């Protein structure tokens, strides 16, 4: 996995009041925007796809200054992440899928990968795409299944992919078209 060491937290992560939702709207808007930026950058760096509201990870809690975002603050921030298109609730106000690339961008990455590996018209399971050899060393490798599924559905709408149910094990398969 990626190294933990080379991620630098922004200044506000060490400043206690940023861990309390601010009562004044302008200040709070700025605060939430800063948190959103941090969440996306952090998740992308550490390849974290899902944030659990209840999880006291270092992202939500800075043990050095003994401050943590409370549940309400976490929900407010993640709601903003979702409403700006950078997240999806997997379970409302509990588990949030983080999209540091939005779905069309993931679809584009997927397309490029298919093209570079000449995988057009090749039936593949979603599982293969995520964990197979072909995707190793690319952003596709290890991507959250929900993201992959949505990206494929996006491409389906554009006529560039088709989802099907595997005949043997019922696993979801996909074919891409140029």
């Amino acid at each position, binding site marked *: 996995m990626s190294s933990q060491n080379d991620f630098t937290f922004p200044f506000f992560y060490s*400043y*206690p*009041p940023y861990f309390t939702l601010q009562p004044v709207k302008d200040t709070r808007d700025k605060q939430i925007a800063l948190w959103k930026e941090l969440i996306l950058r952090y998740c992308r760096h550490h390849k974290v796809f899902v944030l659990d509201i209840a999880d006291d990870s270092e992202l939500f809690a800075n043990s050095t200054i*003994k401050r943590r975002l409370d549940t309400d603050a976490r929900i407010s921030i993640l709601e903003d992440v979702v409403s700006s298109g950078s997240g999806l609730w997997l379970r409302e106000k509990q588990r949030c899928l983080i999209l540091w690339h939005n779905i069309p961008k993931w679809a584009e990455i997927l397309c490029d990968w298919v093209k570079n590996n000449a995988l057009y018209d090749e039936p593949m399971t979603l599982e293969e795409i995520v964990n197979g050899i072909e995707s190793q060393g690319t952003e596709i490798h290890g991507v959250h299944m929900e993201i992959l599924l949505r990206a494929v559905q996006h491409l389906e709408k554009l006529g560039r992919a088709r989802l099907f149910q595997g005949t043997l094990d019922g696993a979801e398969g996909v074919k891409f078209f140029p």
Partner: protein
Amino acid sequence: MRRRPGLQGLQQRAVEKDRKSALGEDVARNQVERVKEQLSTFRSALEEFALKHRNDIKQNPVFRAQFHQMCASLGVDPLASNKGLWAELLGIGDFYYELAVQIAEACLTTRELNGGLMDIRDVLSAVQRRRGGIAERVSKDDIMRAIDTLKGLGSGFTVIKVGSHQLLRSVPSELNTDHNILLEFAQDKGYITEKEVNENLGWPSRRFDLVMDGLLKDQVAMIDDGAPDHLRRYWFPCLSLAHGKSLNPGTEG
């Protein structure tokens, strides 16, 4: 027998008076001339000096500050005009103009974070970062001078003193005395609690709430409900964002 004043005597006295006052004027004129001469000698010496030490003045902030002091005591203001000999000689006008723009920039980009109040030291480090390593070094004295040139534009940039801190205010609203008292009280730790203010300044909570409400609305203060003692802390980003103890791990309780 006493002589009465005659016509001749009166005339003589008038002539004498005229002569004396003419002499007096002469002397005064001479003195003014001499002072003028001295001054112009001073000025040309100063100009010569400036020309000779031009590089020092441009590059060494301490030297520059001393040069400004010297100029001030001679009644010369190198900043007054950008067209004069001074500007041509040193480019000082441009230097401060450029600095002023950088200061204004630093204030604007951090306004959302500090409510338009910024510690002069933070301004200095922001400007230095912005200028990079190759540009002439800048001192606090330079910052203050550049702010003075901003003032001339009616821009509302003012320096206020809060305890040992000097804060640059870039938004027009005024800090009243109560605001100032709280900021000063907070300057060591970067935050205050209502309890501390009540115990040390004797403020009833009504007064505290009123003043804090204003500071929160102006985005000069932020609340912090995560303290170990469960007392709400009010932080002032202008006091501690860049220099605060909060950025050094371990000092925050």
